[in-house]
């Protein structure tokens, strides 16, 4: 499954450690929420970056205290129809100030990229190679957005207001 990061297909530096499997001595690792919560102290003391896969049916309360020490949070789309992780992503970015990598994983398809970017994801485990290759095109498709989110785009409402304000400021 290709990983798209920073807008391009990239290598995944995180080694996915299955529950119960031996932890490598160094290097970036990605672990399940259960494993992380069970041994967060050991994990965080270790050399190397830590990423956690957070399920979409669990609140963020147990995750939030650790955010500043996590390099990656992977949120899950068990099916592309299940949109709970969009809410989790926005909360992590906009409310809890998470600045690490926010990765969409599971059934991630081309037609969700815009929504995901707007919700704060910046990395994508894309299902299909062709979708990963089309990332740039898909991400640039829209230039107008109706909602304010944490992604920095002004909503149409605010753009109108601004252009209005600048017009009326003219002499």
């Amino acid at each position, binding site marked *: 499954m290709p990983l798209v990061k920073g807008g391009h297909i990239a290598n995944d530096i995180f080694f996915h450690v299955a529950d119960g499997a031996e932890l490598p001595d160094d290097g970036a690792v990605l672990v399940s929420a259960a494993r992380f919560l069970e041994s967060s102290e050991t994990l965080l003391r270790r050399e190397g970056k830590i990423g956690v896969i957070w399920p979409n049916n669990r609140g963020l309360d147990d995750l939030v205290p650790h955010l500043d020490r996590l390099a990656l949070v992977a949120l899950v789309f068990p099916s592309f129809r299940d*949109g*709970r992780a969009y809410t989790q992503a926005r909360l992590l970015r906009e409310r809890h100030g998470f600045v690490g990598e926010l990765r969409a994983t599971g059934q991630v398809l081309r037609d969700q990229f815009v*929504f995901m970017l707007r919700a704060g994801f910046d990395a994508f485990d894309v299902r299909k190679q062709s979708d990963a290759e089309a990332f740039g095109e898909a991400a640039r498709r*829209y230039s*107008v957005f109706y909602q304010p989110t944490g992604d920095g785009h002004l909503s149409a409402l*605010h753009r*109108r*207001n601004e252009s*209005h304000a600048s017009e009326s400021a003219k002499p």
Partner: protein
Amino acid sequence: MYAYDELDRTLLHERVSEFRDQVKRRLSGELTEDEFKMLRLQNGVYLQLHAYMFRVAIPYGTLSSQQLRALAKVARRYDRGYGHFTTRQNIQYNWIKLSELPDALADLAEVGIHAMQTSGNNTRNVTSDQWAGVAPGEVDDPRIWSELLRQYTTLHPEFSFLPRKFKIAITASAHDRAAIKIHDIGLRLHKNEAGELGFEVLVGGGLGRTPFIAKTIKQFVHRRDILSYVEAIMRVYNQYGRRDNIYKARIKILVHELGIDKFAGEVEEEWRHIRDSALAVEDAAIDEIRARFTYPTYEKQPHMPDELKQAAHDPLFERWRRNSVFTHKVQGYSIVTISLKPVGAPPGDATADQMDVLADIAERYSFGEIRVGHEQNLALPHVAKRDLPALWKALDRIGLATPNVNLVSDIIACPGLDYCALANARSIPIAQELTRRFANHDTADLIGRLHINISGCINACGHHHVGHIGILGVEKNGEEFYQITIGGRADEQAEMGTLIGPAVPYAEVADVVEDIVEAYLALRDSGEELFVDTVKRLGVEPFRERVYATR
């Protein structure tokens, strides 16, 4: 009328090009049907029995003549020359080819019409009172706020994959013509004691398998906070709404399972965080939207012009006027409802030719504006009273002057088994037969206001639960049967109807309805007492006795 600005137009064209690309990928095999289904639904494309169905949004039910002509053009060029106006201010085409859909969408985009989110598990077309902006006594034009919400909900990055569909309706009148109590969120514009404009917010209404009347979650939300409050509700729903069972996935079930107080508590907690965010609605932003609505420049007109006095001698005109013409907030003007329920025809259908002529009529007599209401009728919102006689003649020439608005033959019906893949039984032929039984306008006048609603299955697209008489198609051993309820209503006193007896076969439905109506005529305490009020006063029992005694 809201006129799109450059930003709205750009977004719409971007959406059309995205959908064109999606269709191309589907037709080339790059997308499987499983993947494509959600994408087509997000753009209003269902599969019915015979073909694809295409649902186009008419936000808050307002159309310009130019837009209506574009709808006619789509009917003619891409479909079979007609369209079906639905109960949620949409129009459906029944015979669209997938390969031609992107072109149809592009044609509609030219006049600022789209099909975004007319199906699928997202926020649907935001609906409103079809008399918005012209009804006497409104606290504000609800379409301004509907447009605000239309924009806010369109392609929402967080809420495009909700547990289930999500419907919002807005009214600003004491009399609710937008059926807000059977919506996921119902909004009633009103003023608080300090005279500030805001909303009563209702949540958790809906019909279908488990019908619920919406409950008030907050008596007053200031207009500045309406988007953040709606976002809070949707966020709670997106996180906690059930996804394990499609029949339990609507917000009404979540509200019911948590209880309104607990649910309100969750929303309040969420709202606390986002109330003072970029979602705050500044008055300037509203003014911006308001300025894009054009209002006619009304002339000073007499209350009773000569034309009207003269025409009053024609009993046919008078019958139509008394039935279909309603009070406008400006003296000398009227709101005219156009019945799409001619005797013997499918409720809510209009041909491309009718639409074209109606567009001309609206230009001539209604400042180029047409409205669509949830009763599947159209309306002309600004007709000068002196023009009423000429308008009546023009409407009559195209078969659109049936004086049966709000009467027994003004039936709301879903497509049923003639079109719909989910149906148990047919709806339209039942409606047609009933219009024939009650074709005599004198009888219909005598009966008075009576709403019949028909759905072909429990999904309740024809709102049968809230019909004064509700008819629901069920299947028994491969045969079409119908359950009949009475006493429902969809307005501010919304209520579910009560089953009157065992289901009856197709051939008997019209007889049973006739018997119910006869029972009502015998039981009502005066000519003034409406059908629903008689049912309310006496209960179902006396009706059951009379109707089922001989069956």
